[in-house]
């Protein structure tokens, strides 16, 4: 039972790291798109 807890923790940690990275990519993409739109308006 105890080892299952470690197993699920490792899998959850892996996906948390990947999701955080994907989130950071999305945030950077939105910011760039906004900057690009501002430049187009000028």
């Amino acid at each position, binding site marked *: 039972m105890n*080892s299952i807890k470690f197993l699920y*923790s*490792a899998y959850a*940690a*892996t996906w948390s*790291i990947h999701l955080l990275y994907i989130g950071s*990519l999305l945030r*950077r993409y939105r910011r760039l798109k906004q900057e690009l739109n501002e430049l187009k308006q000028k």
Partner: protein
Amino acid sequence: MKRLFPILAVLTALMLVYAVYQALVVAPTERTMGDVQRIFYYHVPSAWTAFLLFLVNLVASVVYLVKRNPKVDALAMVSAEVGVVFCTVVLVTGPIWARPVWGIWWTWDVRLTSTLVLWLIYVSYLLLRRFSDSAQAPALAAVLAIFGALDIPLVYFSIWFFRTQHPQPVIGGGGSIDPRMWRVLLINWMAFLCFALLMCWSRYRLETMRREVEEAQALESLLGDDRGSSAEIRNPKVALNRSGP
């Protein structure tokens, strides 16, 4: 290309779900470690993927130093960033696996320490890329990447040359595993490789876009300055107003 990305994303998501099913349900339970050994199917493919991405970074860095092609420089940066993400997974899942099996979260043996050093080198590389405005930054980062890559064989072969807590490597070492475990390991690695490829693709597009925005901003500020200077020449009051109180 725009249509290909969502198709690949769906296929990769399906592969990842299948890989999790294989790792948690289909793979046989290891005799001594029990279910916790299934961390192996995330830990090892993540390490292999990180090594592969760091090797791509090495090749791209060497090519950049020779040809000074900005696209190759972008590829070097992207592979290092995604490589650091996978190396972080290795450094996090390793201690979670070590705790129930070795009884400790961390030990300063050669394999673990050299992996931590590898991660630190590539984090430094990314920080150099992020915070240096110098035109020499890509070349300096490329040199750092070449030195950083020297740590990869040290990480992999450390188990051969030094006594460590870590078991023998699965490929090219004294370690051997059940063929069913091999199959599940390869399925997981393929899924993670596709996932890494997608992340690199997205990050590369983002990097290209960032460089375009920076160029457009530089051009805009140049044109803005030119417009300002022309206005000052035509009407000196503009210059007085611009200098302000």
